[in-house]
C-alpha cells in the first residue's frame, strides 16, 4: 500500500515537485475550464494553447530553454491571438470555429518550425509535451503564483463573469464590466496555458483544463459544484497519473491527461446528468 501510493513521493524529490506543479496547474486551470465549456469556448482554449507555441519558440530561439523568455514569449503570443481571433470573427464572414482552427494550425506549424531551426528533437518534445519531472524552483514558483492569481481574480470577478456568460446584454446595460470581464478572463486563460505548458506541454495543457470540467458536467448542475467536482477530478488525475507513470515508466503528461480522459469516458456512460445510461433510461421511461 505504502509502496504503491506514497513511497514514490517520499523517496524522490522530483516526484514531489511534479505533484506540486500538477496540483497547482490543476487547481488554477479547471475553474477556467468550467467557464470555457459553459460558454462553448473549448475550441478557443485549444486554439490559444497552440498559439502559445510560436511565442515560446521565439523565446527559445533567443534564450534557449529559459523559463523567463519562453513564458514571456508565450504570454505575448497568447494575448495576440486572443485579441486577433475575436477581431477576425467580427470583421470577416468566417465562422468563429473555422477562424480558430485556422489560427491553431498555423501556430502549431510555426512553433514546430521555429524550434527545429535551432534546437534538437529533445527540445521540441520538451516544449510540446512539457517536462513535469524536471520542474525547478523557479518553474514551481511561477506555477503556484499563476494559480494564486487565477483563483483570487476568479473570486473577485465571479459575479460579473457568471452574468457575462448567462446574459451578457444585461451586464452591458447595467455597467461597464462586460468588456473588462471578458478581457481579464482571456488573460487568465493565457496565463494558465503558459503555466500548464511548462509542466504538461502546450498540447496537453488544455487537457487538464477541459477534461475535468467536461466530466463535472455529467455529475452536478450548479456552477459552484461543477468547479469543485472538476478540481477534484483534476487533482485525482494528477496524482494517479504521476503514480502510473512512475510505476509503469510512462510519460507523465500524457498519463495524467489519459486518467482525466478515463474519468470523462466513464462519466459519459454513467453520469446521472445526460450520461448514456441515464438518457436511455429516460427515453425508455417515456415510451412506457
Amino acid at each position, binding site marked *: 500500500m505504502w509502496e504503491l501510493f506514497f513511497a514514490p513521493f517520499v523517496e524522490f524529490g522530483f516526484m514531489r515537485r511534479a505533484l506540486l506543479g500538477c496540483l497547482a496547474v490543476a487547481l488554477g486551470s479547471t475553474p477556467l475550464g468550467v467557464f470555457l465549456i459553459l460558454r462553448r469556448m473549448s475550441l478557443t482554449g485549444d486554439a490559444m494553447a497552440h498559439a502559445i507555441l510560436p511565442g515560446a519558440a521565439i523565446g527559445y530561439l533567443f534564450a534557449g530553454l529559459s523559463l523567463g523568455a519562453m513564458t514571456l514569449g508565450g504570454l505575448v503570443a497568447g494575448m495576440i491571438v486572443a485579441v486577433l481571433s475575436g477581431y477576425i470573427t*467580427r470583421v470577416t464572414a468566417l465562422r468563429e470555429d473555422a477562424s480558430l482552427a485556422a489560427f491553431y494550425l498555423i501556430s502549431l506549424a510555426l512553433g514546430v518550425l521555429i524550434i527545429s531551426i535551432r534546437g534538437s528533437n529533445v527540445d521540441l518534445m520538451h516544449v510540446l509535451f512539457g517536462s513535469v519531472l524536471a520542474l525547478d524552483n523557479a518553474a514551481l514558483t511561477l506555477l503556484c503564483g499563476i494559480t494564486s492569481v487565477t483563483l483570487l481574480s476568479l473570486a473577485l470577478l465571479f459575479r460579473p463573469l457568471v452574468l457575462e456568460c*448567462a*446574459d451578457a446584454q444585461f451586464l*452591458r446595460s447595467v455597467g461597464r*464590466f462586460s468588456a473588462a470581464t471578458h478581457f481579464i478572463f482571456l488573460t487568465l486563460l493565457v496565463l494558465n496555458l503558459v503555466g500548464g505548458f511548462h509542466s504538461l506541454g502546450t498540447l496537453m495543457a488544455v487537457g487538464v483544463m477541459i477534461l475535468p470540467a467536461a466530466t463535472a458536467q455529467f455529475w452536478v*448542475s450548479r456552477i459552484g459544484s461543477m468547479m469543485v467536482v472538476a478540481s477534484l477530478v483534476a487533482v485525482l488525475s494528477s496524482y494517479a497519473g504521476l503514480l502510473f507513470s512512475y510505476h509503469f515508466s510512462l510519460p507523465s503528461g500524457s498519463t495524467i491527461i489519459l486518467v482525466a480522459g478515463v474519468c470523462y469516458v466513464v462519466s459519459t456512460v454513467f453520469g446521472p446528468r445526460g450520461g448514456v445510461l441515464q438518457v436511455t433510461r429516460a427515453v425508455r421511461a417515456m415510451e412506457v
Partner: protein
Amino acid sequence: MKYALAFENYSLGYNRSPALMNLQTEIPKGSLTAVVGPNGAGKSTLFKGVIGELTPLSGQMSFGEIGGKDIAYMPQQSEVDRSFPISVYEMVAMGLWKEIGAYGAVGLKHHNRIAEALSAVGLDGFEKRIIGSLSGGQVQRTLFARLLLQDSPIVLLDEPFNAIDAGTTADLIELVKRWHSEGRTILAVLHDTEAVRLHFPRTLLLARELVAHGPTKDVLTAENQFRARQMCEACSGASDMCSRHVA
C-alpha cells in the same frame, strides 16, 4: 412636453454601415410606447444605443430630467444563455446590481424584495430551479422579476411577448400597465400589432429611419405600415451598396 428620451439626428450602425438613420424625436416622460417595424428596421439597435452598448455614428441622445443612465433593459430571450447553470433566484437577484454591484451581499432586505418580485410574476417556489429547466414563459417571468428589482424610471423591453403562452402574456402585460401607472417610461419592441392597438397608447414606427411617432391609432395606419415595409426593402438594398462601397 416633458421628455424621458430625446433623439437629435441620431444614427446607429454596425461596422460603419447604418442600421438606423437620423432619428429625430422625443419619448414623453411616463409614456407607454410600442416600437414597431419590419425585420431589420433598427428596433433592437435603437435599444442598444439607448443602453450605451452602441455609440451613435452621429447625432445625440439625451435623457430628460431623469438625468443619468438608469434604465432597466430586458434583452430578447434568445440573447440569454438558458443552458447556463444559474438559478431563478440568482438571475432575479442580478436586478439588484445597481445596489449591490459585483461584490455587495444580498441581505435580508434584498432577499425579501426578491421574494416579492418572484411572487409578483407568479414564480413562488421556483427560487432554486435552474433556468435551463424552465419553459419559455417562465424564463420571461424570471426576466420580468429582475426588471421589477431594477426599479428604474425607464424600462426597455425587447420582444417581451415573443414565443410565450397566452396566460403568461396576459400576466406580463398587467405588470407593464402597473409600471405605466407608476409613471415609468416604457418602450417595448413588439410584432403583434393587435396587442399594440389594445395595450399601447403610443407607437414609434421605424424602418431604418423614423416613419411615424405618436398616438397608436394615428401611427398604425395601413398606409404607414405599407410605407415602412417599402422603405425597409428599398434601404436594405441601398445600405448593402453603401457597405460594399466602404469595404
